[in-house]
């Protein structure tokens, strides 16, 4: 670890998508007009595929080393060098970031390809791909950065691209407002992130080791123990600040409000940015800084609690939504909550594992829903769908696989990863059975709303209008192929991290072993394998109950949903349906508050400061007006009197003006004589 190997090709993993973005961004409009969209597609997908291949190469490079030596770094150049602040532009790949770059470039590549089909009719095809490539670049920067500031570039960069892509169809203000919301909410998170960086930097500076580089922070982190600021431990405060950043990016309570609105963007964007990659950045960041979080138990509790609350809260909202993408959005928030739950009980490996499997099945779900929307001509309301399985067999099949995975059906990827998190929540030193219990409840809710969606969209009678029904068609191969790949991934991706109970079937837990050099070993404390299996069965049964309920309500229609929605006068239902009124609360407190303050500020400027300035000008003007009066009547009177007197005297003395130089000379001489006399008499 102390002498990392300089590996020059790593930078190209990050930079290739940037090149694609710059190329398409600057020349795209012309290329598209002159040569057609295929050129754009080539320059968009090519770099991402290239990055993927390089990532695989890096992965194999790591594999070929001893676990302790799995570390590659590419220092490009020193970025900021100023006194104690030395920040390099440097990319590193260790087992953790290797997982991330594979997910980002792999799933990202598939989504790029899918987009070629999905966005084919759009006029701003080039702009879409320019931003998508830029996003890939920023995301790769985020996961490979070797220090916090460089990570922050990626962190804000993905936010920018997310903003630009949510508001991609900018003609409608609904979209642009959603983009603004996303960016602004993320800014609040970034505010915390940057303060966290500052705090870490200066606290280490206190010990003479100022740095923002991950490895060095890890090296000196023990120095920070016991240090306090404002009565709080420095590590606790710093991790809380950073966690604020994570809640922004990963849409956790209280900054979760932007993600559902972000569904206004094109569906592949929702898949890539708002499901598979960007929103997981918060989880990645916490795991990346696990050495800090492990030293701050208070923060860990907060993380776990927020994660669980988000998981449950979002799941309850998802129960009531009717927009196909919004259900998925809340499901994403909920699943991210699980990841934070995992991170919060110090099961970092489990969090990353779930992150990876989630990327597969959620991308598959989003792309599937995109396929559905594509076929339905833009319709997103599930109440107008139904029976699509006959028209879109491939989409149906892959969607079903993904739903099974997210619901936690045994042997699918989602089952293993979610179960790992639940088990850790139960058994880890930071966890309690209570966390497990609520986690299981959430799992049941998840199973219910996902199957509800499956039944509403693909089963039953088609409720679309006649016009739409005629045009129903399966999507082209360029779209279904990525779906198939992702569906396969949704099943097999979990096998590498299967717990010991399934060892005979899938071998040892390779995933945990892979991450071990970074995040340390898996907690095997408390509870035996038997207990783990019992818990597993319990959670599966809860999920099955959820599925059954959905089956009764939306497939068999033997149970009316109204029976639940009208419970307690429908108050819980309305609460869920209106997302707990958080949006309204934020709007009235923060947005309107800021605007009100802004108006106050402008008013002060216009009416107080300018009043004083203009007032002083006016006072001056008034004084000079008075002065003018005085001048006109008093001074001018005097002056005129003097002038008149002079004139009169002039008439008298005009004879003095002889034109004779001599007489002038006499006068001058007289004056000189007087002066000399005075000087002689009174001068010193």
């Amino acid at each position, binding site marked *: 670890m102390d002498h990392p190997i300089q590996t020059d090709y790593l930078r190209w993993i990050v930079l290739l998508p940037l090149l694609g973005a710059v190329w398409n961004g600057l020349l795209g409009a012309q290329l598209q007009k002159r040569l057609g969209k295929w050129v754009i597609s080539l320059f968009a997908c090519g770099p991402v595929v290239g990055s993927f291949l390089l990532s695989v190469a890096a992965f194999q490079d790591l594999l070929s080393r001893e676990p302790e030596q799995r570390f590659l770094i590419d220092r490009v150049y020193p970025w900021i060098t100023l006194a104690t602040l030395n920040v390099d532009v440097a990319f590193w790949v260790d087992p953790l970031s290797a997982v991330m770059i594979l997910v980002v470039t792999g799933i990202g590549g598939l989504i790029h390809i899918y987009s070629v089909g999905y966005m084919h009719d759009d006029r701003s095809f080039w702009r879409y791909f320019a931003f998508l490539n830029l996003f890939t670049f920023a995301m790769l920067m985020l996961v490979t950065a070797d220090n916090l500031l460089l990570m922050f570039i990626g962190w804000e960069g993905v936010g920018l691209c997310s903003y630009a892509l949510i508001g991609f169809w900018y003609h409608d203000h609904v979209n642009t407002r959603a983009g603004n919301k996303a960016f602004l909410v993320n800014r609040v998170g970034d505010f915390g992130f940057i303060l966290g960086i500052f705090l870490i930097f200066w606290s280490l500076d206190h010990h003479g080791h100022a740095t923002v580089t991950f490895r060095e922070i890890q090296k000196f982190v023990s120095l920070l123990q016991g240090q306090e600021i404002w009565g709080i431990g420095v590590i606790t405060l710093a991790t809380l600040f950073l966690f604020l950043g994570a809640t922004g990016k990963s849409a956790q309570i209280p900054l979760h409000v932007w993600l559902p609105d972000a569904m206004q963007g094109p569906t592949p964007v929702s898949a890539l940015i708002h499901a598979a990659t960007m929103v997981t950045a918060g989880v990645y960041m916490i795991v990346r800084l696990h050495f800090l979080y492990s030293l701050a138990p208070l923060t860990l509790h907060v993380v776990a609690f927020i994660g669980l609350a988000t998981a449950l809260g979002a799941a309850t909202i998802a129960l009531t939504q009717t927009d196909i993408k919004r259900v998925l959005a809340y499901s994403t928030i909920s699943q991210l909550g699980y990841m934070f739950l995992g991170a919060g009980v110090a099961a970092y490996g489990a969090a990353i594992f779930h992150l990876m499997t989630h990327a597969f099945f959620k991308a598959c779900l989003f792309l599937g829903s995109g396929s559905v929307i594509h076929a339905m001509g833009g319709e997103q309301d599930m109440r107008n769908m139904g029976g699509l399985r006959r028209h879109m067999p491939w989409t149906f099949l892959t969607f079903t696989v993904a739903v099974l995975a997210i619901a936690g059906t045994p042997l699918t990827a989602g089952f293993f990863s979610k179960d790992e998190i639940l088990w850790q929540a139960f058994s880890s030193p930071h966890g309690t059975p209570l966390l497990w219990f609520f986690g299981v409840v959430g799992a049941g809710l998840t199973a219910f709303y996902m199957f509800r969606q499956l039944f509403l969209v693909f089963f039953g009678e088609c409720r679309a209008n006649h016009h739409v029904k005629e045009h129903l068609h399966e999507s082209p191969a360029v779209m279904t192929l990525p779906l198939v790949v992702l569906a396969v991934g949704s099943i097999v991706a979990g096998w590498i991290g299967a717990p010991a109970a399934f060892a005979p079937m899938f071998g040892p837990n390779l995933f945990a072993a892979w991450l071990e050099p970074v995040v340390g070993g898996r907690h095997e404390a408390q509870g035996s394998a038997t207990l783990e299996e019992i818990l597993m069965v319990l959670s599966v049964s809860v999920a099955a109950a959820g599925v059954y309920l959905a089956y009764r309500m939306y497939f068999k229609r033997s149970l009316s949903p109204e029976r639940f929605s009208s419970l307690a006068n429908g108050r819980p239902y309305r609460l869920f349906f209106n997302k707990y009124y958080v949006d309204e609360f934020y709007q009235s407190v923060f947005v309107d508050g800021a605007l009100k303050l802004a108006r106050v500020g402008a008013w002060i400027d216009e009416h107080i400061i300018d009043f004083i300035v203009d007032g002083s000008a006016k006072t001056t003007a008034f004084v000079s007006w008075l002065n003018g009066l005085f001048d006109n009547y008093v001074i001018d009177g005097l002056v005129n009197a003097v002038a008149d007197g002079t004139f009169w005297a002039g008439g008298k003395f005009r004879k003095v003006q002889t034109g*004779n130089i001599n007489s002038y000379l006499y006068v001058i001489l007289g004056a000189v004589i007087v002066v000399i006399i005075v000087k002689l008499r009174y001068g010193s």
Partner: protein
Amino acid sequence: MVGLTHYLVIGAILFCLGLYTVLTRRNAISILMGVELILNSANINYVAFAHYSSGSLDGQIYAIFVIMLAAAEAAVGLAIVLAIFQLFHTIDVAATETLRE
């Protein structure tokens, strides 16, 4: 012993004579002569002060400038006199008092 005072007195005498000339003469050329006397008296003072008081050459330099300007003044002044003579056929300043109101 001859000292600063002697020179200053000579200067004063010349000045007064020049002034008297200027005051009493009606002939423009005579007035110019008076002015020359005044200038010479000033020059004597300059050079005398330079010699006895300051010890530097500045006074002499000024004297030279005064001489230069006197030459210029004489040339222009006499040209004017000639022009006036041409116009009025006299150079009696009393006859040319057109400046009078």
